[in-house]
């Protein structure tokens, strides 16, 4: 990842139209930072429309095109409706955003160091298991139990995250291999522990943990409204704090500078006296801490227990978040909010119109793709190719 945030909108005073008139296309071009994501979003919606239309085979066979249009309209109206319209949708958006943001930060920090953390799932699983153990085994006052449980989760994530760091720095194991392996290992370990007496809920034969005690449960965010169905919890505040920490670390500290230098050019960083091994391990430790926090927030706040799949696919979705947010703190927050909103809206869409929530996955993939391809966007939307950049870049196995 040479430079993730190469701003394509830098030359604002670039020579525009020779006649002195700044045409619409030029103006679009100069506001690239906003326009590009917007155009990417619109393009994704257009393709999503096609997918909805062509998968409606009953109506297609009947030739009921009006009905198809209605479905599309209802589906796309349900998305913002289910994400923002009222306390409950906002609450659901926050619930979906929280783990995405934390896990997204776990990917973003490694992207900044030129590393690729596919292991968010494993780090979440280990962190969450540590958290849930403290969450159900203690019975102390919240003021002690919650910090302990959250801390245990972060510690678990850090331990699991530091393994690929050490393997990379000391033995040259590519982090893509090690994190994939560690995800599977964590999954098996979680399943094993959930069956042991240590974790399994009394009287249950399926792998499900004991319930987190009320004292160990993260307080609800909207407790003041006295509506128990609003399940958003203070994990969201942890996530925002983590994003702030990420910003501070990466932009304001010497360590952050070194991490960025390592990501930009490892050889140069080493030549300048930095220690790549230390930076790799530290980046992975921080990433593990973020992901562990995500796991903690899921089991202590949202779910109240651990099951085999409590981390879901969040570790992978987080890669999308980091890619879309270009691994910047603000970008990651906005990307997580967008994907969280899409997730919440998608649930509403599925219930109201029968269009499967998987549409959100499609939209998400297309948004990442289009954001990463400014040249393609410019070709499709016929924007002038002035100052065309090749989008965010991240060197794969090699450089």
């Amino acid at each position, binding site marked *: 990842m040479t430079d993730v945030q190469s701003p394509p909108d830098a030359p604002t005073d670039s020579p525009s139209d020779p006649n002195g008139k700044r045409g619409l296309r030029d103006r679009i071009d100069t506001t690239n930072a906003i326009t590009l994501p917007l155009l990417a979003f619109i393009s994704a919606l257009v393709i999503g429309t096609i997918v909805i239309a062509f998968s409606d085979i009953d109506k297609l066979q009947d030739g009921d095109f009006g009905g198809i249009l209605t479905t599309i309209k209802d589906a796309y109206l349900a998305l913002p409706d289910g994400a923002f319209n009222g306390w409950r949708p906002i609450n659901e958006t926050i619930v979906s955003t929280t783990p995405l943001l934390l896990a997204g930060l776990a990917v973003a920090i490694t992207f900044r160091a030129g590393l690729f953390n596919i292991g968010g799932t494993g780090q979440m699983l280990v962190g969450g298991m540590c958290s849930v153990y403290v969450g159900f085994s203690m019975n102390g006052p919240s003021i002690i139990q919650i910090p302990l449980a959250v801390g245990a989760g972060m510690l678990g994530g850090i331990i699991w995250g530091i393994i690929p760091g050490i393997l990379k720095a000391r033995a040259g194991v590519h982090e893509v291999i090690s994190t994939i392996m560690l995800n599977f290992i964590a999954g098996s370990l979680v399943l094993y522990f959930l069956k042991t007496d240590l974790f399994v809920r009394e009287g249950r034969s399926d792998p499900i943990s004991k319930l987190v005690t009320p004292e160990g449960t993260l307080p609800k965010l909207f407790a003041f409204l006295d509506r128990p169905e609003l399940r958003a919890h203070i994990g969201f505040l942890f996530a925002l704090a983590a994003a702030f920490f990420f910003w501070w670390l990466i932009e304001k500290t010497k360590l952050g500078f070194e991490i960025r230098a390592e990501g930009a050019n490892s050889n140069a960083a080493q030549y300048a006296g930095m220690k790549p091994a230390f930076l790799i391990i530290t980046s992975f430790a921080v990433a593990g801490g973020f992901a562990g926090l995500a796991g903690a927030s899921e089991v202590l706040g949202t779910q109240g227990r651990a099951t085999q799949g409590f981390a879901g696919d969040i570790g992978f979705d987080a890669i999308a978040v980091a890619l879309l947010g270009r691994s910047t703190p603000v970008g990651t927050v906005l990307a997580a909010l967008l994907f969280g909103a899409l997730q919440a809206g998608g649930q509403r869409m599925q219930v109201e119109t029968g269009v499967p929530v998987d549409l959100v996955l499609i939209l998400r*993939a297309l948004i990442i793709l289009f954001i990463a*391809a400014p040249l393609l966007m410019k070709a499709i939307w016929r924007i002038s190719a002035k100052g065309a950049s090749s989008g*965010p870049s991240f060197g794969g196995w090699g450089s």
Partner: protein
Amino acid sequence: MSEGIGLKNTGHGPGTDAYLGMVDSVTRTPDEIKRSRNLGIAYLIGAVITVAVFVQGTGGTATFNLDNDASFGIGAIPLAWICAVSLAVLGGVQISRGTANFQSALLGVAAVLFIFTLMAWAAAGQSFSLTGTLHDALKASTPLVFGALGGILCERSGIINIAIEGFLLAGAFTSAVVGSVTNLWIGMIAAMIVSSLLALLLAWLAIRFLVDQVIVGFAINFFVLGLTSFVDARVLTSNPEYNGVPTLAEWKIPLLSDIPIIGPVLFEQTIYVYLGLALVALVTWALFSTKWGLQTRAVGEHPKAAGTLGVNVLRRRYVNLAVAGAITGFGGSWWTADVGRFNENITNGRGFIALAVVLVGRHHPVGALCAALLFGFSDALALKFSFLSTSIPSEFLELAPFLVTLIVVASVGRGHRVPAALGQPYEQQ
């Protein structure tokens, strides 16, 4: 370049590597000594695990069934001691003076011995179908082989392929739907075409629009997962006639399948296994012994030089990607042939294991085959063990191959070089 750089380009070309391999037995670079020491430590860890776990087993004779009535028995605990002592000696030799040119061979022997001990430990006092397990191992590794071959072709041409999972899933989906409407054979061809088109999309975006190849790969994975799940939920569940194909029967090769032990393992399989093995041989030959292979490797290593010598770099990349996509898509149709239908996310991360297989196999078809067999074997083993009444939690067996891969990669991982121009855009003059 010795600190923490991992799979990065070591800077020397294939000729230098071969030369270094020749002088290996005479002088060893510090890096090689370190690698050798790491491998030795891995052996010692294996020995410790053997003493701590396998020697403490319930004991008794493990009976391995071969064919219909042939079988042999091994004492679990004596075997464990043999294994532990061998590994300890091997580890000691490896650390003190290295094993030079026998390193890979010895690693293979040690791995087989260790796995045998593991099986004897689990099956102590019971009987266990060895040929059945090997048969299933080969079967389970087949989609990984196809996925890895596609990945190797891609990456040897200089394009990063993270989208193996997406190609496999697209192949599985297409073959199920097209196969339901027509038949499985046409479904296979459709799967190859669709995955091929996806690969061309990857190539087009990477080459024409300079989009980062890792991002495109991931986007394709997400897109295929989303689209197939979407259509599955919206169309296939309510129209089961589009999702049901008769599964593919095994094809016993006459004469060859009568060979004891080898016959039932190798020659009573579906055509996927035969084609997969043939394809490994074919790709190995094509990559290293033909003009096409030389050009492909040149395009992946140094496209500028290849272009100067008259190779059409971009066309080579497009064509190779299309072929890679077709191979992977065919591998995806394995699920349809095996299960007879498509389920949401049926590949379940196998594409990522195939990605690991590519890297563990060092971008070499034969290496990838070995790595794929390791994963396939552990899959089969975990399944077989779940029928044995052993005290081992099946979860530990499921995680064993991943742990073994980690240890093996950590001990021999350094020094693997990837194609030098991997992931870099190329501008054709």
